[in-house]
C-alpha cells in the first residue's frame, strides 16, 4: 500500500462508521480515564491530607533540640529551598499587672511559623486573626486569660520582659506536640526571647526548627541532617509524631492504590474482550483483503497503525475525561477539604498513557496481530481458520505485563502479587470449571425441556468463548468484591478507631485525697469520667545492674529514660502481650510490663531486671511481659505498668480522663477553679482533627469505589455484548424455523444466568484469596471469610449477568429475522 499512514486512518474512519470500533475505543478510553482520574484524585487528595495532617506539626518536618538549632542547618534548609520557622518552648511563671501568677507553657515563635495550619486568635474583632504576635505582644490561652484576669491591652511579665496582651489564643496547629506539656499556652514573638532572660544554659527549653516544602527537597534536607543529629536532637514528620494519622493516611493510600490498580485491570479486561470481538468481526474483511492482494505485512501494518491512532486518540481524550472526573470527585469533597488549589501534575497523564500503551500492546494487539494470518481461502470456504481465540502465550504475556504495570503503579509487590495471583486462580479455575460444566451440560440438556436444551446447547456450542466470558465476568465481579470488602473493613476499622465519646480531656496530678470530691464534681454535672489510675513520674536507671548512660531530656538511644508509670492488675484493653505473661491480680511480686518500643530502646527482654527510681526511691523489678500498644487509639497508653501493690508504696498522684461535648468546654475552667492544682490536657481539637481526616478519606473511598463500580459495569457490558452478534444470527435462524420469542429469550436468560452464577463462584473464590492477602498483609486489617457473600455472589452474578445479557440480546427477538439474516 502506498501510504499506509493515510490508509490506516481511512480504515479507522470506515470502521468507526461501521460501528465496530466503538467497544474497543470505549474500553481504551475507559482505561485511560479511570487511571488518570484515580491517580490524579489520589495525588491531590494525598497532597491535601498531608498538608492537613502536617498542621499537627505546623510543618512538614521538625528538628527539635535541647540546644539552639545550629545555624548551618538553617542555611541548609534555605539552600534546598524549604520554608522555615522556629519555636522555642519552655515553662515559665507569667505574672499579670495585678500580681496574679500562673505557670504557663510558653512558646516563642518566629520565622514563617506556622508553615502548615494556622493560629486562630480572638482580638475582639469580628474575624479571628491568624497572624503570629507582633514583637512585644503575646496571645494567651483562655484559661490563662481567666487565671491572670488579663485582657487585651494589659501588660504581662514573662521573666524580665514586659509584653502586651494582643489576643486570646483559640487554637494553634501544633498544640499536641508533647503529651505532658504543663500549663496553658502563652504565645510570644521569638524577637522578645532574649529580653525575658528566662532561657539560660541548662534550663529546660525545646528549640524546634520547622521546615516545609516539596517532598524531594524535604528528603534531601532529611538525609543531610539525619547523620548530624546528636543526643537530645531529633527529627520528626507527621507519620512519626502522630501515629494515628500516619496509619490512617497509610491505609487510605493503600486503598486508593488498590482501587487504581483494579481500575487498570478492569480496563485491561474490557480491552481484551473488545479486541477479541474486533478481531473476530474483522476476520472476513481481512480474508477479502488478502484475496485482493494484501500481504500479511500490509494487514499487520494497517491494524498496527489503526491501533496506534486509536491509542493516541484515547490517550488525549481519556486524559481530558480523567481530568474532568477527578475534579468532579474532588469538588464533591470540596467543602471537607481545605480550599487550597492543587494541580494534579503530569504524573497521572503519564500513568494513563503508559497504561494505554501496555493495554494496547498486550491486550488489544495480539488478537489483531493474528488477523495477518487469516487464510484468504476463507472467501471460498467460510469454515477456514478464523482468527483463533486467545492463546496461552498471550495470556501469560498479558498477565505479566499487567503485573509489571501494577507494580510500577503501586510500587507494592504484595498488592500486585495478591491481585495477579487471584486473577490467575479465577482464570485457571474458570477455564477448568467452565469447560467441564459446559461439557457435562450436554447430557442434562438433552433430557431437559426445550428452553433449557436450547440454552445449554448454546453455551456448549460457544464452548471456549463461553468459558472466556465466564472468566471475564468472574474477574470483574471478583475485583469489585475485593474492593467492596476491603472498603468495608477499612471503614469499620476507622469507625472503631475513635468511637463516639472517646475521652478528649485528661486530668493529671489528682491528689489521692481529692478523689471523692473530684468524682462528686463530675457527678453533679452529669459528665462521665473514666477510672482513676495511679501515676508516678519515674526513671529507668539500670538494666541487669548495668547503669544506663545519663538521662537527657530527649528520649532516644539506650540511656536512662523517664516515663509515666502506672499500675493495674488487669492487662489494659487493646494491648497485646507479645512476650512473657500478665501477672496474677493481687500479686506481691516486683514485676513490670513494658511497651515493646520502650523495651527495645533500653535493650531489655522478659526476665531482665530493671532498676527504677521514683522521686528519691530506687527499687528493682523483673520484666514480666512486653506489650504491643495501639497508639492509634486515642486512649491513654503507658510505657511502664506495675502491679497495683507495688506502686502503692510510692508517692503517687492519680490521673483520669473524661469526655466533653464541644458546647461544654467551659467545664474545664470550672474544674480548674475548683481544683487549681490539676493539670488538664485538652485533646479535643486533636481528636476532632483526626475525625475530620477520617471522614474525608472515608468519603473519598466511597467515591473511588463508585468509579470502579462503573468501570466494572462497563466490563460486564462489553463481555455480554461480545457474543451478541453470534446469538443474533443464530436466533434469527431459529426464529425463521419457528421458535417463539419466549423460548428464545428464556434460553438467552438461562444461558447468561448460568454463566453469571458460575462467574459468581469464581469471583468469590478469587476474592477470598485476594482479600486475605490484602487485608492481612497490606492494610493490616483483620480478615474474616465473608460467608454471606457466597450465596449473594452466586445469586447476584446470575441476576446481573442474566439481566444484562437478556437486555443486550433483546434485539434477538425484536428485530425481524429477515433483517438480521440480511445484515450478516
Amino acid at each position: 500500500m502506498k501510504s499506509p499512514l493515510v490508509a490506516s486512518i481511512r480504515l479507522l474512519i470506515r470502521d468507526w462508521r461501521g460501528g465496530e470500533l466503538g467497544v474497543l475505543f470505549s474500553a481504551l478510553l475507559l482505561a485511560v480515564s479511570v487511571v488518570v482520574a484515580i491517580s490524579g484524585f489520589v495525588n491531590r487528595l494525598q497532597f491535601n491530607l498531608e498538608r492537613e495532617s502536617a498542621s499537627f506539626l505546623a510543618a512538614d518536618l521538625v528538628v527539635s533540640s535541647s540546644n539552639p538549632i545550629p545555624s548551618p542547618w538553617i542555611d541548609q534548609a534555605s539552600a534546598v529551598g524549604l520554608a522555615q520557622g522556629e519555636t522555642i518552648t519552655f515553662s515559665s511563671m507569667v505574672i499579670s499587672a495585678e500580681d496574679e501568677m500562673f505557670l504557663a507553657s510558653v512558646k516563642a515563635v518566629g520565622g514563617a511559623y506556622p508553615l502548615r495550619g494556622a493560629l486562630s486568635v480572638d482580638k475582639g474583632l469580628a474575624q479571628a486573626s491568624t497572624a503570629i504576635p507582633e514583637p512585644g505582644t503575646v496571645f494567651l490561652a483562655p484559661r490563662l486569660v481567666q487565671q491572670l484576669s488579663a485582657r487585651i491591652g494589659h501588660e504581662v511579665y514573662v521573666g524580665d520582659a514586659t509584653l502586651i496582651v494582643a489576643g486570646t489564643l483559640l487554637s494553634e496547629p501544633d498544640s499536641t506536640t508533647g503529651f505532658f506539656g504543663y500549663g496553658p499556652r502563652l504565645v510570644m514573638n521569638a524577637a522578645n526571647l532574649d529580653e525575658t532572660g528566662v532561657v539560660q544554659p541548662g534550663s529546660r527549653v525545646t528549640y524546634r526548627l520547622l521546615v516545609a516544602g516539596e517532598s524531594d527537597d524535604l528528603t534531601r534536607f532529611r538525609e543531610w541532617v539525619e547523620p548530624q543529629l546528636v543526643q537530645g536532637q531529633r527529627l520528626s514528620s507527621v507519620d512519626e509524631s502522630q501515629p494515628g494519622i500516619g496509619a490512617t493516611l497509610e491505609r487510605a493510600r493503600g486503598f486508593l492504590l488498590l482501587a487504581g490498580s483494579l481500575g487498570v485491570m478492569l480496563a485491561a479486561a474490557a480491552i481484551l474482550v473488545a479486541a477479541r470481538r474486533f478481531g473476530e468481526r474483522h476476520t472476513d474483511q481481512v480474508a477479502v483483503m488478502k484475496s485482493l492482494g494484501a500481504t500479511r505485512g500490509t494487514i499487520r501494518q494497517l491494524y498496527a497503525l489503526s491501533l496506534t491512532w486509536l491509542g493516541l486518540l484515547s490517550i488525549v481524550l481519556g486524559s481530558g475525561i480523567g481530568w474532568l472526573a477527578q475534579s468532579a470527585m474532588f469538588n464533591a469533597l470540596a467543602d471537607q477539604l481545605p480550599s487550597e488549589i492543587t494541580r494534579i501534575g503530569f504524573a497521572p497523564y503519564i500513568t494513563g498513557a503508559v497504561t494505554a500503551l501496555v493495554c494496547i500492546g498486550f491486550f488489544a494487539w495480539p488478537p489483531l496481530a493474528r488477523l495477518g494470518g487469516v487464510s484468504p481461502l476463507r472467501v471460498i470456504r467460510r469454515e477456514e481458520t478464523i482468527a483463533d481465540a486467545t492463546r496461552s502465550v498471550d495470556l501469560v504475556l498479558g498477565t505479566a505485563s499487567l503485573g509489571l504495570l501494577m507494580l510500577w503503579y503501586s510500587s507494592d509487590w504484595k498488592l500486585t502479587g495478591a491481585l495477579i495471583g487471584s486473577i490467575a486462580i479465577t482464570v485457571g479455575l474458570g477455564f477448568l470449571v467452565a469447560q467441564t460444566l459446559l461439557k457435562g451440560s450436554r447430557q442434562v440438556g438433552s433430557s431437559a425441556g426445550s428452553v433449557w436444551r436450547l440454552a445449554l446447547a448454546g453455551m456448549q456450542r460457544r464452548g471456549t468463548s463461553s468459558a472466556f466470558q465466564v472468566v471475564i465476568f468472574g474477574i470483574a465481579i471478583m475485583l469489585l468484591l475485593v474492593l467492596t470488602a476491603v472498603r468495608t473493613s477499612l471503614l469499620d476499622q476507622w469507625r472503631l478507631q475513635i468511637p463516639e465519646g472517646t475521652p478528649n480531656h485528661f486530668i493529671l496530678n489528682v491528689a489521692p485525697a481529692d478523689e471523692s470530691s473530684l468524682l462528686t464534681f463530675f457527678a453533679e454535672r452529669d459528665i462521665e469520667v473514666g477510672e482513676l489510675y495511679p501515676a508516678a513520674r519515674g526513671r529507668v536507671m539500670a538494666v541487669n545492674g548495668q547503669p544506663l548512660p545519663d538521662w537527657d531530656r530527649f528520649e532516644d538511644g539506650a540511656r536512662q529514660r523517664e516515663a509515666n508509670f502506672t499500675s493495674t492488675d488487669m492487662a489494659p484493653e487493646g494491648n497485646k502481650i507479645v512476650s512473657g505473661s500478665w501477672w496474677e491480680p493481687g500479686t506481691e511480686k516486683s514485676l513490670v510490663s513494658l511497651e515493646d518500643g520502650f523495651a527495645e530502646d533500653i535493650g531489655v527482654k522478659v526476665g531482665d531486671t530493671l532498676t527504677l527510681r521514683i522521686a528519691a526511691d530506687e527499687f528493682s523489678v523483673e520484666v514480666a511481659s512486653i506489650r504491643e500498644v495501639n497508639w492509634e487509639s486515642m486512649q491513654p497508653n503507658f510505657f511502664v505498668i506495675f502491679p497495683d501493690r507495688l506502686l502503692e508504696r510510692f508517692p503517687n498522684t492519680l490521673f483520669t480522663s473524661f469526655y466533653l461535648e464541644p458546647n461544654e468546654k467551659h467545664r474545664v475552667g470550672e474544674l480548674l477553679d475548683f481544683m487549681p492544682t490539676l493539670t488538664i490536657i485538652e485533646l479535643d481539637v486533636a481528636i476532632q482533627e483526626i475525625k475530620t481526616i477520617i471522614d474525608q478519606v472515608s468519603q473519598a473511598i466511597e467515591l473511588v469505589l463508585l468509579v470502579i463500580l462503573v468501570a466494572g459495569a462497563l466490563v460486564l457490558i462489553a463481555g455480554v455484548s461480545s457474543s451478541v452478534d453470534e446469538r443474533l444470527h443464530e436466533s434469527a435462524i431459529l426464529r425463521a424455523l419457528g421458535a417463539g420469542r419466549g423460548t428464545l429469550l428464556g434460553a438467552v436468560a438461562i444461558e447468561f444466568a448460568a454463566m453469571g452464577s458460575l462467574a459468581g463462584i469464581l469471583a468469590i473464590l478469587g476474592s477470598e484469596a485476594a482479600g486475605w492477602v490484602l487485608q492481612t498483609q497490606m492494610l493490616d486489617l483483620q480478615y474474616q471469610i465473608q460467608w454471606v457473600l457466597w450465596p449473594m455472589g452466586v445469586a447476584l452474578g446470575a441476576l446481573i449477568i442474566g439481566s444484562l445479557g437478556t437486555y443486550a440480546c433483546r434485539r434477538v427477538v425484536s428485530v425481524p429475522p429477515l433483517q438480521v439474516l440480511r445484515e450478516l
Partner: protein
Amino acid sequence: MIKTSQLIKRVSTAESELEILRGIDLEIKRGETAAIVGASGSGKSTLLGLLAGLDAPSSGEITLDGINIVNLDEDERAILRSEKVGFVFQNFQLLPALTALENVMLPLELAGIDDAREKSEEFLARVGLGERFHHYPRTLSGGEQQRVAIARAFASRPLILFADEPTGNLDTTTGATVVDLLFGLNQEEGTTLVLVTHDNGLADRCQRKFTMTAGHLEEAS
C-alpha cells in the same frame, strides 16, 4: 497464461485423508474464457483457489503468466494477486463497513495505485451504478452487490479474472445482466476469464468448457 501439471490437493480430516484434486492438467491462453462445471463438492472451488494462489497444492505445478506460483510464499502470492488477479465470488464478499465506491477502491489502494478514486468511479459507472457510489452493501440488492464486486474485480485491470459461481446467488434475470457485464468488460479489457458455474447457458458462452468429476478435470469438446 495459466498452466498446471499433475495438480494434486489433499486434506486430512479427522477420520481420513481426502484427495480433492487428483492430478489436474490444464492450459488456458491469454484472453481466453473458460468455464468449469461439475457437481457440488467435486472440487471446482478448490481448483479455483489454487489457481488464484489462495492456497498451496499438495503437489504439482501452477504457472500464472510465466511465474511458477507453487514456489512463492503466501506474501509473494498476495502481491501477485494484487498485480494480476481479480475475483468475483458467489456471495459477493463486499466489506459491509465500506461504501460501494470504497469497496471498489480497496484493491487499487492495496496495489498502491494513485488515481484509485477516479478509476473506481469509472468502473462503477460502467457497471451502471454511477448513482450509488456512497451506498453501503446492505442497502443494495444482490444483483447490485455483484455488480459492485465486478467493478472491484476489473478496476485493478487484472490479467486474469476468477469467478466462483458469480450467478449462484442471483435469480435468472439478474444473473443474466451480471453475466452480460462480465463478458462485456472481459472483452473490452482483454482479460483471461476462468469461471465456475452450474449454469450450462453461462458455460456455453465461454470459449472453452471443462467438467470436474470427483477431482478429475476433462475438457468438453
